[in-house]
């Protein structure tokens, strides 16, 4: 008898569970895959945005997922998804402008495989210098370069955005042949390397060099932007664009699979725009992450990709050789 009662209770529980699952909920979970390290800037922003999604939508819940792997992760994502799947992915200039030129065989996708949803932020990279060199601005840098035999720069990755920014700056200043890019496995390692004097300079996101700067290990030389930095700890740091040197900001776009309904894409874009307009999100981005909210149009995205591609093509030899 006991066994019969137990069986009946189990069957009933399972049936109730199944019926609950068939409840016809309108809410859809969208997984946002970030193909970089979970501790990286993009993954953290994605996580923060996802945590706020329920405040602004009753239909969409964003679930952030970070799988380190860059091109390989996006390849898998493209292979495993189709139009209207509730899947989103991050990709930036690293894939569309750098890998597409340096190692196109690595990409099993083109921009046409995606539909643009939104750009969440833009990051102005800064160049730091070993504090013992006492380089505090562009004029100090020019004086230093005139007598330097070698210019060593630490970057997070051999062919990263940071490496190309260093190549573009020193190449356009006429010192491309003296440049030696030393690749590190993370921005934190690159920051420690310059503070220890292993390299003279490092290029990184502002947030990634902040702690080393506050400890006095490095000075900040310049920002890779058109104008000087106006806010935060690095306010007043000169933008290289002011001197006519090439630059680009780091941007990572949220993309859906191509063919996804325009209505759905608009809904997702509106959700992200609402999240980015939230005061808490904006202040977190600027104060904690040292990033700027930077919503974009499809045309802006194309322009950004093209600008970086032009820089990569021009300074390809310096980085690769």
């Amino acid at each position, binding site marked *: 008898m006991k066994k019969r009662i137990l069986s009946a209770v189990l069957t009933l529980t399972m049936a109730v569970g199944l019926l609950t699952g068939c409840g016809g909920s309108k809410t859809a979970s969208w997984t946002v895959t970030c193909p970089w*390290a979970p*501790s990286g800037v993009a993954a953290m922003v994605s996580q923060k945005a996802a945590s706020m999604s329920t405040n602004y939508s009753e239909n969409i819940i964003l679930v952030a997922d970070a799988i380190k792997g860059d091109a390989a992760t996006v390849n*898998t994502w493209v292979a495993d998804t189709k139009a209207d799947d509730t899947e989103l992915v991050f990709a930036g200039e690293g894939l569309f402008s750098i890998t597409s030129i340096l190692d196109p065989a*690595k990409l099993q996708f083109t921009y046409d495989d995606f539909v643009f949803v939104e750009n969440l932020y833009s990051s102005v990279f800064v160049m730091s210098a070993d504090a013992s060199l006492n380089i505090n601005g562009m004029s100090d840098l020019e004086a230093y370069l005139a007598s330097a035999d070698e210019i060593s720069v630490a970057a997070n990755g051999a062919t990263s955005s940071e490496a190309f920014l260093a190549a573009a700056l020193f190449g356009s200043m006429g010192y491309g042949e003296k440049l030696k890019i*030393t*690749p590190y*496995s993370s921005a934190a390692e690159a920051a*420690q390397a310059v503070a220890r004097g292993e390299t003279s300079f490092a290029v990184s996101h502002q947030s990634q060099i902040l702690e080393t700067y506050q400890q006095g290990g490095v000075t900040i030389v310049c920002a890779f932007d058109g104008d000087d930095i106006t806010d935060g700890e690095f306010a007043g740091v000169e933008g290289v664009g002011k001197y006519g040197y090439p630059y680009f900001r780091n941007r990572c776009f949220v993309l859906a699979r191509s063919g996804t309904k325009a209505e759905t894409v608009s809904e997702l874009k509106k959700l992200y725009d609402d999240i980015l307009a939230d005061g808490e999100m904006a202040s977190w981005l600027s104060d904690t992450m040292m990033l700027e909210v930077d919503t974009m149009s499809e045309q802006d995205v194309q322009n950004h990709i093209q600008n970086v591609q032009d820089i990569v093509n021009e300074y390809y030899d310096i980085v690769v050789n």
Partner: protein
Amino acid sequence: MLEFIGPALEHLFTLENFLWMNLGVFIGSVFAAVPGLTVILCVILFLPFTYKMTAIPGMMFLLGIYCAGGYGGSVSAILINTPGTPHAAATMMDGHPLSQKGRTKAALKIALYASTFGGVFSALMLLFLGPQVAEVAAQLGTAEYFMVCLFGLTIIAGVSGKSMIKGIIAACVGLLISCIGADPMTSYDRFTLGIPRLYLGLDLAICLIGLFALVEILAKAEKKPGPLILDAEKMHDNGKISKEEYKRLLRPTLLSSIIGVMVGIIPGTGASEASWFSYDRAKAMSKHKEEFGHGSVEGIAAAEAANNAVTGATLIPLLTMGIPGDGTVAIMLSALMINGLNPGLSLFTTQGDIMYAIMIGLIFVNLFMLLQGSFLTKLFAKVVSIPQEILTPIIVLFCFAGAYSVNKNYFDVGVALIFAIIAWLLRKLEMPAVPILLGMVLGNMTETNFRRALLISNGNPAIFVSSIYCIIFIVLTVLAVATLIRSKMKEAKAGIKK
């Protein structure tokens, strides 16, 4: 340090963390109690499931398995004279004789108390020594790191088993496997054979499922399992330990905990070395030497305190420099790195709240082990006699589910199977698998630091002797290699004499 304690406790004290800790302790105890199932196998099987967790619950779960594995192995050592894990062999020397004297519960109780003391002592050492070692590690540059890696590679000699040559060959296989994927210095692909899924290299967890878990199944398929009969009813004693016995336990437990910590910090050594060394010391210092081998309470306490005192100590080189103290913690490194926690000083500064939560959590893991050990020992004892015919299909299921769940694709299941076949062939050639694991873990780090150091020095090898830290690690490496070669030669000589 103090500024991190508050936020760390806030992160740690959640129902989720405590559930994972307890689940880990339970699973670890069960696995270690069953002869033939090891802690390393258990950690490998459950590692993929932690990939979807955040850092603290994931590490709590794995540390639960790791610590409880130390105690669980003693259950079968005491009950059936077969150590559940290799490092419980020293416990068996006195645990089983004491059990035969009708004091099974008492023997299990002593093992549990000593394990808990050793574990908590080790966790405290990690908490206080970890940040200090990390401060020193932060001063290490690329050349110094290469020297640390080189020293780390001497672990291979310690885990080579009978033949060091075979161990070195196996390590080279591991180093070669670590080369698959993008070149760390140029980002160009190596040995990917045009297979896109190999661009990132091979996932450590998937390879390990093949190397350590599936291969066990293949090996079991070759043997006919014998029945393990356990009379759980024989645990009928009251388990009472007298006041005088408690007094006798104090010194060997404390001393063995210190030995365990010291042994654990040195890469390449492990719980087995610590427990035998401590057992030997306890015997030498005891006033009741004649009891050793015949059910000495001091013998059980010394062996158990030492093998659990290794657990926290092995994490010190892992968390500060990325050098695993033994094979099991080498696997835990991937659980940390998947959550963006890279070994080094920043782990104790910028991510200090998470790190301190994990280190404090290790103390609680040991306390839960005491709790579960006190109430569930009878259950663990019954587990000892679960037939292999039932266990094997469960493990196979876990292997495939684990391999699939990492990236949700069947390619990884295939990779795990290929590695199982490789491991099975290596086993036939009597080549150990742990050096392959260490080669895979240390390979990338060693190569990157070597090549980067030469890039910094424009190809001048003098960079490797350019600082006092480099010199220290060169001396340590030479000493470690010389000691290991000497002990291997002694073993060989002793073998010839026999």
